[in-house]
């Protein structure tokens, strides 16, 4: 029999015992729903964790430093003889632009962090200030903060870390909207002549031009207070207590720690960055980008191994969830076997008529096989929808609970396309396997005995 005829007869046969077949199909749907709900939780939690971790900027970032200054930064090269032999490339603006042009690199920004004195209510508070790139607005690093992110990339505004804000005021939230004064040491390049004149005092500065340090003040408006440390202590603006727009920080040209080191090693003529943070499209591309940057002569650092372990953890987690979810589907397949065996008993005479009219064993087998497949397909489609609904319900329930705890809402379930189609295919395959025995049994029926059956 042709495939179209087999399918048509299979659907017709299923419609004849609509209640029993619907219940069996519902069993498959519940099994698939259980599988999909479990895996949607796994996928959802993975996405949630990935989003939260990527918001820290740790997993899609490569931290770059000059090899001469940060030899220890790159452990793999720390003891390598070639490290000493190869001249260190300067980590300057040209290097930043070159790295920014690499494939899959979305952003490259320098670490600008400097010691300063904050004056508020006529009291001095020494602390560390960091420049924050505009991209931090969207990547979630400042999620959950009080107040707002900077109004623009060049706004004279500041965001305070909560502990620092508590030092300024007993009521930190009252600080929002108020001004503070940033006192810092501005780096001003010396003219070449004066550098030459001062050469007798220090060979390093004479050779490289040198710079002078001039105190300056900058008034900033407090726009936000952040409770967690953005960046988790890594990459540029971590370990600081006052955050200002990166563009503002660059304009201030404040003296940084590495400026003093530049003076000592005689490279202060051109201003180099202490380090660069390179944002990559996704954690998967970190390794390739990191390798390329290393080949450019810089020291690099990333949390690549950590992301690998994270992926391994979620793979195992999803596998276990899938196994538990499949148990219900396994039980549902027994329902298919039962239904089809019942159908053989009921349709014994019909099978005899089929054979008398020219059906061979294969036709009968394919017919029962198709009936199992159709139940699997319908159950699979309905099950995916049901599983998605269960995932939504779990997310809703979780968010109600989180709202009561005054915590932000989360999305803990997700049904990506591969899961939906994979679950339907799995349901069909499992149903076909369940149909193997009934189909073989129906095909083996003796037509003479089947025709005698009342």
């Amino acid at each position, binding site marked *: *029999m*042709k495939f*179209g*005829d087999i399918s048509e*007869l299979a659907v*017709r046969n299923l419609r*004849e015992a609509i209640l029993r077949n619907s219940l069996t199909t519902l069993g498959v749907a519940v099994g698939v729903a259980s599988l999909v709900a479990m895996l949607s939780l796994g996928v959802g939690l993975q996405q949630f964790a990935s989003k939260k971790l990527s918001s820290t900027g740790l997993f899609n970032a490569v931290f770059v430093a000059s090899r001469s200054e940060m030899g220890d930064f790159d452990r793999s090269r720390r003891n390598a003889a070639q490290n000493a032999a190869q001249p260190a490339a300067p980590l300057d603006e040209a290097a930043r632009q070159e790295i920014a042009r690499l494939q899959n690199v979305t952003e490259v920004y320098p670490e600008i962090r400097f010691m300063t004195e904050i004056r508020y209510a006529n009291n001095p508070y020494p602390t560390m200030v960091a420049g924050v790139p505009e991209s931090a607005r969207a990547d979630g690093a400042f999620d959950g903060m009080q107040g707002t992110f900077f109004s623009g990339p060049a706004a004279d505004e500041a965001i305070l870390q909560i502990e620092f804000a508590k030092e300024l005021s007993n009521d930190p939230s009252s600080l929002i909207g108020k001004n503070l004064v940033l006192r810092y040491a501005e780096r001003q390049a010396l003219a070449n002549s004066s550098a030459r004149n001062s050469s007798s005092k220090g060979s390093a500065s004479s050779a490289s031009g040198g710079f002078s340090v001039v105190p300056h003040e900058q008034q900033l408006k407090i726009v936000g207070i952040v409770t967690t440390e953005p960046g988790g202590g890594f990459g540029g603006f971590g370990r600081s207590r006052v955050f200002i727009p990166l563009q503002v920080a660059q304009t201030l040209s404040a003296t940084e720690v590495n400026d003093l080191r530049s003076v000592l090693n005689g490279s202060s003529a051109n201003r180099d960055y202490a380090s660069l943070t390179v944002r990559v499209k996704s954690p998967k591309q970190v390794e390739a980008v990191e390798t390329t940057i290393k080949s450019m002569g810089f020291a690099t650092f990333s949390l690549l191994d950590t992301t690998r372990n994270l992926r391994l953890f979620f793979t195992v987690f999803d596998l276990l969830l899938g196994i538990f979810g499949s148990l219900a589907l396994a039980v549902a397949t027994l329902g298919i076997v039962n239904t089809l065996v019942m159908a053989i008993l009921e349709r014994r*005479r*019909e099978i*005899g*008529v*089929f*054979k*008398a*009219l*020219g*059906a*061979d*064993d*294969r*036709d009968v087998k394919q017919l029962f096989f198709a009936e199992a497949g159709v139940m699997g397909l319908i159950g699979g489609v309905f099950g995916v929808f049901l599983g998605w609904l269960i995932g939504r319900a779990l997310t809703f329930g979780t968010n109600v609970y989180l709202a009561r705890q005054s915590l932000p809402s989360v999305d803990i379930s997700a049904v990506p396309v591969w899961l939906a189609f994979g679950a339907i295919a799995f349901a069909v395959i499992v149903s076909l396997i369940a149909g193997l025995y009934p189909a073989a049994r129906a095909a083996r029926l003796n*037509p*003479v005995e089947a*025709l005698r059956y009342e």
Partner: protein
Amino acid sequence: MTGETNGTAIRVESVSRHYQMGSAVIPAINGVTLSILTGEFVALLGSSGSGKSTLLNLLAGLDRPTSGAIVVQNRNLAEMDTYELARYRSQIVGMVFQAFNLLPRMTLEENVELPLRLAEVDRAERSSRVREALGHVRLDKRLAHRPSELSGGEQQRAALARALVNRPSILLADEPTGNLDSATGEEIMLLLKQFNEALRMTIVMVTHERPLAERFAHRIVTLADGKLISERGANGGAKQ
């Protein structure tokens, strides 16, 4: 494989069919030899348990002989595999049963179409073939009716149409009038006679109604206890 002589539609050579019932062996058919000519109308007569239905099932390829050969179109059914037997049932023979055996959930059109589906006839061709077959039995206006909406005679006529739709050369009928009153039975017999004469179709009919057999069949073959005990022309004439 045994060859087929000219004009012979079916040759049965020393066919036996024994059933194992526990340790006992029941001989349903025992050493039957019979030749049926192309276009012949043969009635198999006999009492219950005489083996006539068993012989018909063997001729239909629904069952296999324990020994002997059944030769149709130069091929021994006993040597065919299940797939070849299915093709034989689909293309060479048509079957009519006492209980009609129409599928109750299908319409007449669908019932008659079923052998065409099994023979993988193109969908475009099926409709005309179904109408033609139902036209032969004057049921072409009842296409959408289900078997339960028809009388016994109409159901048997529909079953006849189903048996004819693949244009078989042999029609095997197992007590086709057994469930019908005499008038309706006669109507069915007239149809069988018409197919036999107009389409030169070979017909083998199992019946226990001797008068009908004598009126319509060319030859009456009588079985008893699985053996062929007589073979004669329907009106007592010589064996054909």
